Each structure stands twice: as structure tokens, then as C-alpha cells.
């Protein structure tokens, strides 16, 4: 029952907190605090600072820059980073393709990619989802056909987050269309985004931003050495990768920071002369969210303590589910604090609407995604009822 930090871990936490709040440029962290998306440069700058300090890929094998931390240390590291509004190391690099390369890649592939991946010299994007295969990943239709020393890839991916910034893509393709089970006959290929035949179409989201893309492949020729792991065994790597994706998905630190912001905003916003923070309804709404957040943080710690050899504990579905709900509740709270000002989302110069109120509704709408991506909350309920409860 490890629900308190030891003095060592308190010190470790202090160390992380100090690093993040002093070594990462304030202007980058302020953007996060004010609910603005980091730019590509912000991501790169931050990750290189972290990498130089050995803090970009602590969960990787030590030989490639990892730190051999306990799950608890990784947890503290992640939460402190979120709390400090530090843009996290690019998940596609550090949580997805990096660990896959370290686990499944050839020595040549490791040497070629891992250091650059850790330092964000290569910006990776993910080519998994397809238009007709959302939650049903294994239903993918993109095909790769062998032609001499090359694979020829045709098909379409979607929901490719920040694909517009990416140098390389890691991508699942069907390499054996005759396989009996649809999970078999899939392989993982990596290739540069400027390979001939690759085109990218940004998808505008409800908040007016462009963070996801469609990626089209038309006779894209990929050298055989760019296949990761064994041919037709790509599903193993996908499962390994998606398991990592759920780590840290509770996002307690990030939500805490948002809730602290909401308190400040509710203090500054008045109704009939009284700050909303003193309105029983708002105060109680904050108290309820905050209390669930406490419970979520403690649950995350229990999960961390019980997770063996990097495999996600089944209860991590609870973290994803509740974590996404709480994130959404805080964005909704902030829209409500903004009240009539929340409509003014794309206000320009000449407007007196404060910035936080302008971004409130776009963020609220954008955050609907957090219960959809990375395994929708419906998928999490399937996991909980099936894997945990045995239903």
C-alpha cells in the first residue's frame, strides 16, 4: 500500500520539478499554461533540452539513453512534466517507434534510428488508423507488395497526428492478404514522408486547428531493410506499441494544472459582484473534480506499483477512461466560467475578450477527442468488462 512517497522519492520529485521549471524556457511553458498548442519548434527545443539531460527517453533501455527507473519514478517524472506545462517528448518517437525499434529492430536499425529518434532529429508520425478501420485496427487495407528488394505500398491512413511536421512514418500494411486471421499477414514499415508517392492532406478540426492528417500512398517504394521485425508479424509490434500508448494516459498532472487555472479564472470572474469561486455551485463542481482527480492519481500510483515488466496493468483502462472524462470536465468548466465570452473563439485585435476565454470553447470541443483516440472509452469498457471482470 504505497500511497505516500518515501523521502527519496520526494527528493526525486523535487529534482524533476526543479529541472522542468528552470531548464525548459518559460515562454514555452507559458503557452501550455495558457492552453495554447506548442509549435513544432517548441517540441524540438524542449525534447533536445530533456535529451541532453537524459530526460527524454528514461523508459528506454539504458544503452539507448534510458534510466532504469522504477515505474514510480517514471510516473513522477511524467506527472511533474505535465504539471509544469512542459511539452512532452514526442510520443510517436519516445513511446511508440523508439521502444519498438529497441525491442524488435535489427542492430542496424537501432544504430540508424534510435539516437536521432531520442533527440527528435527525426520527427516520426504514425500510420495505423485507416478510414474504414478506426477502433478496428486489424481491419486495415493498406497493402505492401514485394517487388525485388522493395515493398510497394498502396493505401490510405488517417488521424495521423502532426503528420505535417513529420520526417518519417511508421506504418502498418497488409503483406499477406491470404492470411487466415486478419491480425496475421500485417507488417510494419518505416519510410520518409518525402518518398515519392506519399501525399498528405491536413484535416481541419472543430477548433480550427490542424493536428491530424490523411496520408495517401501511391506506389510508394520502400527498401526491404525498412521493414521492422519479422515480416507478417507486425501485429505483435502494434500491440506492443499500443500497450505503451496507454501509459501516462491518466494525465493527472495536466488536468491538475488546468484545474488550478480554472480556480484562478473563477476567482477573477464575478457574477453579481461575487467571484464564481465563492458560488456554491462552482466551488462544489471544482471540489468534485478535484476529489476524483485525487482518486485518479492514487489509482495511477496503485497501477504503477502493480505493473510488471512494462506490461500495462488491465486497470490502466480505468486511468484512460476516468482520465479522459476529467480532462473533458475541466475544459467544460472553463467554458462555463467564460460564459458569454466563450463564443468569441477567433477574436482578433480590437477584442477585449481575454485570451483564456477565446480558447475555452475550441479546447472544449477539441478535447472531445481524448475519449476517442488511443482506444475509445467504449474500447476501454470492453477491456474492463472482458479482461478484468471476465464478462
Amino acid at each position: 500500500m504505497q500511497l505516500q512517497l518515501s523521502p527519496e522519492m520526494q527528493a526525486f520529485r523535487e529534482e524533476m520539478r526543479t529541472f522542468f521549471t528552470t531548464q525548459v524556457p518559460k515562454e514555452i511553458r507559458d503557452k501550455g499554461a495558457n492552453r495554447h498548442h506548442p509549435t513544432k519548434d517548441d517540441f524540438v527545443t524542449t525534447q533536445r533540452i530533456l535529451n541532453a539531460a537524459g530526460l527524454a527517453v528514461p523508459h528506454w533501455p539504458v544503452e539507448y539513453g534510458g534510466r532504469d527507473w522504477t515505474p514510480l519514478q517514471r510516473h513522477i517524472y511524467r506527472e511533474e512534466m505535465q504539471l509544469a506545462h512542459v511539452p512532452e517528448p514526442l510520443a510517436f518517437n519516445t513511446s511508440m517507434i523508439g521502444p519498438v525499434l529497441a525491442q524488435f529492430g535489427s542492430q542496424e536499425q537501432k544504430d540508424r534510428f534510435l539516437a536521432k529518434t531520442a533527440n527528435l532529429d527525426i520527427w516520426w508520425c504514425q500510420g495505423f488508423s485507416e478510414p474504414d478501420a478506426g477502433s478496428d485496427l486489424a481491419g486495415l487495407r493498406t497493402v505492401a507488395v514485394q517487388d525485388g528488394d522493395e515493398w510497394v505500398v498502396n493505401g490510405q491512413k488517417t488521424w495521423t497526428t502532426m503528420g505535417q511536421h513529420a520526417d518519417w512514418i511508421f506504418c502498418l500494411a497488409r503483406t499477406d492478404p491470404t492470411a487466415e486471421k486478419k491480425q496475421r499477414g500485417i507488417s510494419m514499415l518505416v519510410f520518409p514522408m518525402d518518398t515519392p508517392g506519399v501525399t498528405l492532406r491536413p484535416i481541419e478540426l472543430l477548433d480550427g486547428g490542424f493536428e491530424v492528417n490523411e496520408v495517401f500512398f501511391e506506389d510508394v517504394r520502400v527498401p526491404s531493410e525498412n521493414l521492422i521485425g519479422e515480416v507478417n508479424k507486425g501485429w505483435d509490434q502494434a500491440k506492443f506499441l499500443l500497450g505503451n500508448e496507454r501509459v501516462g494516459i491518466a494525465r493527472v498532472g495536466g488536468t491538475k494544472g488546468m484545474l488550478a487555472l480554472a480556480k484562478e479564472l473563477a476567482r477573477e470572474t464575478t457574477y453579481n459582484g461575487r467571484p464564481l469561486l465563492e458560488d456554491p455551485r462552482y466551488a462544489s463542481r471544482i471540489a468534485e473534480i478535484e476529489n476524483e482527480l485525487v482518486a485518479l492519481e492514487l489509482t495511477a500510483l496503485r497501477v504503477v506499483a502493480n505493473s510488471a515488466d512494462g506490461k500495462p496493468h488491465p486497470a490502466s483502462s480505468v486511468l484512460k477512461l476516468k482520465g479522459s472524462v476529467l480532462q473533458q470536465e475541466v475544459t467544460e468548466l472553463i467554458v462555463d466560467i467564460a460564459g458569454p465570452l466563450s463564443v468569441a473563439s477567433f477574436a482578433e485585435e480590437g477584442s477585449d475578450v481575454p485570451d483564456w476565454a477565446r480558447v475555452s470553447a475550441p479546447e472544449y470541443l477539441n478535447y472531445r477527442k481524448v475519449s476517442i483516440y488511443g482506444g475509445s472509452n467504449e474500447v476501454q469498457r470492453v477491456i474492463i468488462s472482458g479482461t478484468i471482470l471476465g464478462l
Partner: protein
Amino acid sequence: MRRKVTKTDPGFDEKVWTQLAEMGLLGLPFAEEHGGAGAGPVEVAIVAEEIGRVLAPEPFVEAVVLAGGLINRVGSDAQKSELLTALSEGSSIPTFAHTEIGSRWTPTASAVTATEAGDSWTLSGVKEPVPHGARADVLVVSAALPGGGTGLFVVNGDASGLTRSGYRNIDGTRSANVRFDSTPAAPLGEGGDQTDAIERALAVGRIAYSNEAVGAMDTALRTTVEYLKTRKQFGVTLNKFQALNFRAADMYMSLELARSIALWATVVEMTGGDVVSAGDRARLLTSRAGRHIGKDAIQLHGGIGVTAEYKVGHYTARLTAIDHLLGDGDFAADRLAAKVGDYPTVDPLGAPYA
């Protein structure tokens, strides 16, 4: 189509506006002598619901119900004749400039003040966000009166000392920051404190928005149901997943309850009942239902639901905007809560429709 229209100013289709005028919809609730059609709240509700159903970006509720409604109720005969005729014809779009930074749905004004000098009045201060405030030809402005109370004034779009900075809202419609700097203004009607008239206008607006929201929720639900029937995952259409169907059933329940109360509030308005409390009731339930349906419509669609390229998310955006323009659900609940001890039961069927 809508996306294209809302990407460029004024955020709606002027041709469609003209068509609405030709169909007589812009003068619907006004007397025939003022160019109107002499129809009642029920007809207005039908139009508002249809606006919501197709997510039309044209400012029907804002111009006709809110601004037009105030002119019709408070204005002098001359003002009605001039402004309502022009509105009905589609030649002049009015707006109600009332919200101020720092005000939360109150019927009073404080950031804009009115000053009398001889026979004439000027206004100074800032209103924001003002619906389609940059495009509007004429503004009905609430302002703090020198002797206390809140008055209503008419300001022409080309008046001196008027600065307007428009922008796009979350739902694709437009708002503006409107600055008054000793801007000439004419009292609406007989002048004096109009707090009650504003409270009533806001209530009528809440009812109209409730009807618009019902239309939007209806489409959001229909779109979702259609998606569940056709979208395949794991080799079957989504409606093979009972948990998803059940959520659609709950959305239907929310919609039908909201529809009932929006209809009823419209009837209360028609029959001269307590429109302020009916407006709160409609606002409360359509707020709860709008959030429920807006969120679940996106969730049941999955990723496509949060894109700007697919329609369902825009319905959620509009529902979110409606939910905050004239008061959110908690606001309405608090106002109703303050009175629950005053009576044992509500009788929505009895006169005068309490």
C-alpha cells in the same frame, strides 16, 4: 457549403437572407403595418427550429427575435415603422448590443453609459460580444442611465464615434467588439429604464434559442443514428453494439423532453403567461439536453466527429454557443431554485401557465 459561407464575412449568405425576407420570415412576428406578417411565437418557433435543424448561419434569432423583438415591444411607432420594415424587407439588419465583458446574462448594463445633452443622447463604453455586430446596420444598445436604471438606444451603423471589430465565433457565426465614444444615439421608444423589457427580451430569446437547439439536437441525433446504421467496425455495423444503441436511446429521451418544454414555453409566450420563468425552464432543459446530445453525437461518431469537415461536430459547436449566449443551464437552474419554495407544485397545463 456552410463551411465556405462561414469562413468569410459576414459569416452568412446575404442571398439567403434576402430569400428569407422574400419568404416573409424576417417580418414574421411584426404587424403588417410595419411590413411584417403578423404571426405569433409558434410560427417563430417553427422557423427557429428549422434554422437549428439545417444549422443555418443566418442570424434569425439574433436579428428578428432579439433586436426586432425589442424594437417591436419598446420602439415608437416611427421607429417600428422604419426599423421593422427595413428588417422585414431584408434591407437592414439590426442587432441587440447588450453583453459586456464581465456581465453574465444580467438584464442591466454598466460598461456602456448614456449621457444626455440637451435633446440628444450619446453613448460611451464597450459592448462585446455583440452578435454579427460588425455587419449589423443598426444597433439596439443597452446603457446605464444617468439617473440609474438601464435604457435602450438606437445607434446607426454609420454613427460617429463607433468602432467595430468583428470576428468569427466558435460556431462560425460572427461577433464584434463595439466601442462607443460619445456616439450619438436615439432612445428606443419613450426612453427611461427598460430593465423589465430587456429581461423579457432575453427570455423570449431563450425560448427561441431553445427551439433552435431542438432543431440542432434533432439533426445531431438523426445523423448519429444514420452513422450507427451504416458505419462498419469489426465487420459489422455499429448498431450491432447494444451499448451504443442504448446511448442513442438516451439521446432520444433527452431530445423529446427538451422538445416538449421548448414547445410549451412557446405556448406560454403566445398566451401571455410568465415568459421569464418559462424561458428559464426551457433554457435549463435544453442546456442539459444540448450538452448530452452534443457530446454523445461526437463520441458515437468517433474521430470524424471532431473534424471540421464532417457536420456533426458543428452542431455541437452551435449547441455550445447557444448554451452560453443568453445564460447556461446552471444560470437558469439557480434562478428557478431561488423560487422553488414559493409554491408546492408546477402546473404547466393550467392558466396562466406558471
